[in-house]
């Protein structure tokens, strides 16, 4: 029996993250490889009473817009929208002259490539610096002299709009915001839009940028994260190998007993009969997934090997680490606080990890907000082309003799 009744196939993954060049590197980070330390940067807000603030943050991520995207007018596009555009363009179907990775393979006449393409994007930081700049201008300039370009860029939907306009995608265009669950909500809503036939495919992403204005919205104790990730998804067909997004569940947990309820949520999310397995660790590299290596290609799934959690509550993440002995990898502790994009980043990390691991493999992406709002999504690989290698092509993932990433 397959791990899910039906699912979405992941057809592309685009990343613009500090210290992570591609999905294979992201998988290694999930597996315990360290990121370069984030230096302390100073953030200011001129013409306001906000004091300068020092915060551990990586250097700004260069967007590196793919050459296939028209560059005209990009100079006026806000930084977060550029990161989103770059990640989305990277996740979008590979140009014909560029052979795709095996796990992303789709033929040009593939029916899933026809029909409207939806864009769903999660962010809590998009437009905030522009909103604040307009407020500063309103305080310091005469009315009517504020920049006409700031206002339209001051809402949350800049990244989704930029992706839609620049890539010519005319399907549903949605932006989710709020806490970390917003990123998984974007994926859930994409699932529903595809199931309802409102779109044939979707680019689902999340992004964050750092400024003096965004810092008050982030939790203390984590690196203030900047970057973007995007998944290209479409309905999965029978027996199609690759990475799948499967079952999901959204719920508001009772805040009076959040840790216990989270543990129950994770236990309930595991496929029935899944055995004990190792998986990604929050710290040192794990002993890699013996049960996965032993699993037959395309056969019975190895079961959930761990959970990638996005939460700003460190104690909660630590409490989850004891669920059935399976490892829990805490996104914010490792990559930093992405705000509303956290849940999407958790899913992207799970996709990268499953793609690097011998199939079948399965991970849970979980996002929990202090309010109790939670979402959980199953990510799995299925029907491996070989029993010893992951889904990445040779050029994108070095595979060790044992099947572990080097």
């Amino acid at each position, binding site marked *: 029996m397959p791990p899910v009744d039906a699912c979405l196939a992941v057809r592309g993954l685009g990343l613009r993250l500090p210290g992570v060049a591609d999905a294979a590197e992201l998988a290694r980070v999930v597996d315990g490889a360290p990121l370069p330390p984030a230096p302390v940067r100073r953030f200011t807000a001129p013409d306001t*009473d*906000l004091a300068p603030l020092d915060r551990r943050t990586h250097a700004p991520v260069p967007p590196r817009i793919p050459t296939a995207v028209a560059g005209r007018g990009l100079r006026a596009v806000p930084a977060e929208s550029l990161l989103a555009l770059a990640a989305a363009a990277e996740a979008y179907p590979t140009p014909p002259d560029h052979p795709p990775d095996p796990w992303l393979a789709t033929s040009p006449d593939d029916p899933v490539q026809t029909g409207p393409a939806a864009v769903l994007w999660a962010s809590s930081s998009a437009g905030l610096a522009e909103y604040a700049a307009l407020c500063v201008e309103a305080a310091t300039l005469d009315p009517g002299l504020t920049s006409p370009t700031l206002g339209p860029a001051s809402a949350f939907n800049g990244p989704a709009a930029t992706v839609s306009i620049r890539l010519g995608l005319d399907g549903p265009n949605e932006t989710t*915001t*709020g806490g970390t669950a917003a990123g998984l909500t974007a994926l859930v809503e994409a699932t529903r839009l595809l199931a309802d*036939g409102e779109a044939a495919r979707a680019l689902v992403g999340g992004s964050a940028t750092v400024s003096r204005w965004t810092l008050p919205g982030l939790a203390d104790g984590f690196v203030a994260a900047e970057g973007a990730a995007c998944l290209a998804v479409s309905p999965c067909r029978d027996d199609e190998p690759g990475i799948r997004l499967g079952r999901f569940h959204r719920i*508001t947990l009772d805040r009076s007993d959040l840790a216990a309820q989270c543990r129950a949520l994770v236990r309930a999310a595991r496929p029935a009969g899944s055995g004990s397995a190792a998986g990604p660790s929050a710290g040192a590299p794990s002993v890699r997934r013996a049960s996965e290596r032993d699993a037959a290609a395309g056969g019975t799934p190895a079961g959930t090997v761990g959970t990638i959690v996005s939460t700003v509550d460190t104690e909660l993440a630590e409490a989850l680490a004891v669920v059935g002995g399976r490892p829990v990898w805490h996104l914010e502790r490792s990559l930093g606080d992405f705000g509303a994009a956290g849940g999407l980043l958790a899913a992207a990390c799970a996709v990268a990890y499953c793609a690097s691991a011998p199939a079948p493999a399965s991970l849970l992406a979980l996002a929990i907000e202090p309010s109790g709002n939670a979402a959980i999504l199953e990510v799995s690989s299925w029907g491996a082309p070989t029993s010893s290698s992951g889904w990445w092509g040779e050029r994108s993932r070095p595979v060790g003799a044992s099947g572990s990433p080097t």
Partner: protein
Amino acid sequence: MTPSPYSGIGASPLARDRTRPGRPAVVISGVGAVSAAGLGADALWTAVTERRVLTGPVARFDMSRYPARCGAEVPAGAVVDLDAMVPGHESLAARFLAVAALEALRNAGVPERSRAHRLGVFAGTVMATRPILDRGIGTRRLDVPGQGWARPDTLLDILREVVTVTGPTALFAPGCAAGNSAIAAGARAVAADEVDVAVCGGVSELSLEILAMFTSLRALAVDTVRPFDVHRRGTIPGEGAGVLVLERADRVAARGGRALARLLGCAAAADAHNPTQPHPDGNGLVSTIHGCLDRAGLTSDDVDWVCAHGTGTQASDGIEARAVAKALAGRRRPVVSSVKGQLGHAEGAAAVLEAIVAVHALGADLVPGNVTLIEPDPACGGIDLVEPAGRPAPVGVVLSQAFGFGGGVSTVLLGKADRAAG
């Protein structure tokens, strides 16, 4: 056997829509509103039918140096009345949303404090809590108040205090179509059996930042919003909150409740054209209108009223009129009016407030008029603009559309409660 709480593409009913007869009927069982008309959905409908124009000089901010100084504020007395209804919060929008949600749940007969049902919240906004920052706009520099402006999730703080939320909460911010996005997401969650009750809201707080933006874009009307009028000069921002309670029809009937209207279809699209200008052909809007009709199994002749986006801006109204005429070409010109001449453009709240007006129009068999319309724009000749007095007529199906900066378009199709789709 207890159904699995887990969902996925396979778990959600694939047999839906026109090709999927098994799709459960989703109905509106309650409505609640905070608007320039004051507190309550009835106050909103009364203001619409009494043809009151609720825009006027902004009192909350010092607009004395601005060339256009109008807004559609929630009356100061109504803001004071919030104190007796919900806890305080630095975001007025958070309080508007909570008050509208309480009214809608009580209207539906759904207890707001219960863990016996799966209640989810789907809210649409444009700026969330960012207007908190506006209060620091003075002279010469910005005095930044608090930190809530950086935390959009706090928009739901008060709602969570006064309503027991057991299902998901999702906050949508796709631009001015946000309210319809929230309705559509709530409808999908109800249809997929993810929730029993979907609280679908749209909310906005009047923002000096928005007023400054429209001033720089020269898109503000100095006196009145006149949608589809040849002399229209721009829009006027507003504020408020609207909430619909969505449930399955059989659930409402089982508890002896009464559905107010049926949600016949939702569709979304993007113009993929320009950050601030709609596509000249209104492609996204045309696509969503067709999508709604297809899902409901209806034709253009079945639509009795188009509750237009109609912001009163020069370019947008003309494009909308042409797109509606094209999408709904049939035996008669589509019947169109915009209530933004009365309510201003409440941005994140606009679409849900307009859906509430549509629910009332369905119940009263009355098409609201274009109250501020004086001389119809000849460029809008393809649509039947409703006279200011409104039009008593059978109203069985209403199309309510919304779009905004960024190119996102979202449209909902509503019908009388007892109407069967298709």
